[in-house]
C-alpha cells in the first residue's frame, strides 16, 4: 500500500506540475524585469521582482500600454457585463425556469431544449446576434453584450438548478401551499432559499464564463469604457497584436489580473460544481 501511494504521489506531482507550470510561468513573467524575460537560457527563478509590469507612473487608462494597469477601463466593462449577465441568467431566467421544469413542466422535451441551448457553438450564432444587436442599436454597449451573454448564462443556470431543485423534498412546498403561500411565494420564500448552494454555483460559473468570453465580445464591441463595452479579453488580444513580442511583462501582468478572479471564484465554487454539471447524477 505504502509503495503504491508513493508511486501515485509521484504521478500526481507530475500532473500538478503540468497544471501549474503555465500559471507559474505567467506569474513570474509578470514579475520579471525585461532583462530576465528576454534571455537565453530562460530564467526559471527570477532574481529581481518588479511590479512595474502592473503599474508605472505615467500609465494612462484606456490605452493598450506597456503596463497592465492600462486595462482598467476594460476591467470595468468585464465586471459589469459579467455580473449583470450572470445575475439575470440566474435569477430572472434560470431559477424560475428550472423550478418550472422540475415541478410543473416535467417533460423530456423541455430538458432537451435546455441541453440544445447549451450545445449551440458561439461561432454559429455570431451572425444573427450581430444582426439583432445592430437592429437594437446596442453594438458596443453593455446591454448588447449582456443580452447576448444570457444565451449561455441562462441555459447553464437552468441546467444546474434543475438538479438542485429536484433534490429538495416536494413535501416542503406542499406544506407551504397548505400554510397559505401562493405558487409564487412558495417559489421565492421556500424553494429558492433551499437551493442557495446551487444559486451560488450558478452565479459564479456564469460570472466566470462571461468574464472569459471572447468571440461575441470580439464581434459586438470595439472600444473600451467609457465610450464602449470592450471587455478585458479584448485588451489582451489588442496587446498581443499591437505589442507582439515587445511587452511580455505587461501582457503577463494583464493575464494575471484576468485569471485571478476566475481562479478564486472557481475554487470557491468547486464543491458544488460536479453536482451542478451532472444535474445531480453525481452527488458529492
Amino acid at each position: 500500500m505504502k509503495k503504491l501511494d508513493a508511486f501515485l504521489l509521484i504521478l500526481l506531482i507530475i500532473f500538478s506540475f503540468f497544471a501549474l507550470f503555465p500559471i507559474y510561468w505567467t506569474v513570474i513573467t509578470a514579475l520579471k524585469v525585461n532583462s530576465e524575460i528576454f534571455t537565453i537560457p530562460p530564467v526559471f527563478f527570477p532574481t529581481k521582482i518588479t511590479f512595474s509590469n502592473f503599474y508605472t507612473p505615467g500609465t494612462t487608462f484606456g490605452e493598450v500600454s506597456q503596463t497592465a494597469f492600462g486595462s482598467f477601463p476594460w476591467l470595468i466593462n468585464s465586471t459589469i457585463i459579467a455580473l449583470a449577465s450572470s445575475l439575470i441568467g440566474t435569477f430572472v431566467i434560470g431559477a424560475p425556469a428550472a423550478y418550472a421544469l422540475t415541478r410543473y413542466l416535467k417533460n423530456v422535451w423541455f430538458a432537451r431544449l435546455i441541453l440544445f441551448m447549451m450545445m449551440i457553438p458561439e461561432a454559429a450564432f455570431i451572425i444573427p446576434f450581430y444582426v439583432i444587436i445592430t437592429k437594437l442599436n446596442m453594438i458596443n454597449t453593455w446591454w448588447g453584450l449582456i443580452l447576448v451573454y444570457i444565451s449561455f448564462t441562462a441555459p447553464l443556470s437552468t441546467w444546474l438548478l434543475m438538479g438542485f431543485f429536484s433534490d429538495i423534498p416536494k413535501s416542503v412546498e406542499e406544506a407551504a401551499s397548505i400554510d397559505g403561500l401562493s405558487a409564487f411565494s412558495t417559489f421565492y420564500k421556500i424553494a429558492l432559499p433551499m437551493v442557495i448552494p446551487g444559486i451560488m454555483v450558478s452565479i459564479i460559473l456564469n460570472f466566470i464564463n462571461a468574464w472569459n468570453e471572447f468571440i461575441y465580445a470580439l464581434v459586438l464591441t470595439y472600444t473600451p469604457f467609457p465610450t464602449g463595452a470592450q471587455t478585458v479579453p479584448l485588451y489582451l488580444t489588442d496587446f498581443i497584436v499591437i505589442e507582439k513580442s515587445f511587452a511580455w511583462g505587461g501582457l503577463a501582468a494583464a493575464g494575471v489580473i484576468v485569471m485571478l478572479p476566475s481562479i478564486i471564484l472557481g475554487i470557491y465554487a468547486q464543491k458544488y460544481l460536479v453536482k451542478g454539471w451532472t444535474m445531480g447524477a453525481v452527488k458529492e
Partner: protein
Amino acid sequence: MDNGGSEGIMSEVIVENVTKKFGNFVALDNVNLTIKPKEFFVLLGPSGSGKTTLLRLIAGLEDITEGSIYIGGKKVNDVPPKDRNVAMVFQNYALYPHFNVFDNIALTLKVRGYSKDAIKSRVSEIAKILHIEDILNKKPRELSGGQQQRVALARALVREPSVFLLDEPLSNLDAKLRVEARSFLRSLQKEVGVTTVFVTHDQSEAMALATTIAVLDKGIIKQVGDPYELYTKPKDIFTAGFIGSPAMNMIPGKLVKDGSSWRFVSEDFSVQLINTEFENEYDVILGIRPEHITLVKDDGINAKINNVEPMGAVTYLDIQVGSVELTVQYTGLIKLEAGMEIKVKFVEEKMLFYDRKTEKLLNI
C-alpha cells in the same frame, strides 16, 4: 379565507364516491366516508392501498378524478389547499430548513395577515402545549427527530385548522419515542378537539389512537368501525388478517350440517359448533385469534409444538395441526418445548367464518 377557530374546528369531512386515477392506475375506487367532527379518524392499510392518496385529496394536494369531498358542509373539489383550512403533518415533517422554529410555525399566520402581537401570542401558546418553548430560535437541522415532529405538529395546529391531517407522522421515530408520541398525540387531539385524519400502515398505532378506523386495500375501503369492532368482528379476510398481531389464524375447511347442529370440518380435524347457525353449507375459512385457542388436558385437537416464544406476560406457541400451523397465545409463562404433543380447543363464540368465495364474514 380563514374563518376563525371555533367554527372551523367542528368541521365534518365527507368523501363521496371519490375515485382517483393516476393515468390508468386506479389509486382510489369509489370511496365513501364520513368523518365526524372532533373524531380521531385513522386511515389504515398496507403501502399502495391508497390511504395517503386519500389524505392528499382531502388536503387538496391532488385533484379528484371523480366524486366530491366536503369539508364543513362545503364542497371543496376546486378549493386550493390554502383555502380549505386544513393543516397537515408530513411523514418527513417538511419543515422549512432555512427558517428557525418560530418562523416555521409563524409563517402561516403571517401569510394570513395576523398582527405581529397576535402571531407572537399564538406561537408561544402552541409552543407551550407542545413543550417546544426553548427551541424556538433553533433551525430544524439542529433538532432531534422527536423535536422536529413536535414543531411540525405546532406548525399545523397554530392556526386552529378545521381538519388536521397526519401522514404517518410517527414512522420516522424510533420505537420507544413512537409509543410516547402516540399517547401524547392522543391527549393533544383531545385537548385541541380538532377533527383529525391520520394515515398509518401500523395497525397497533391505529388501534391505540383511533376513535374510528377505515381499512383500505388496493384503493377500496374494506371496513369502517371503531377499534373494538374491527378487532372482534372484521368483516372480511383482508381486515381479519391485517388487524391484530400476531395475526389471526386462518384455517380452510367446510361448514357441514350435522343433524340439528353445525360442524366445521377441515382436512385434519373437525369442531362441533353448539351455538352457531348458518343458512347454507359453505366452503369457508375459519379465523381464530391466537388468544382464543386454549390448551386443554383432554378432549381437544391434537397438535405438536413447533416453537415456543416466551414474551413474559404472554407466551406464543407455534403449533402444527395436521397441515396447518397455528399461533397460540397463552397468558403467562408456561414450561413447554418444541416437539411436545399437546391438545388445544377453540373458543366457539370467538370463531369467525369467512365465505371462501366472497371472503366475507358469515357470522351474524
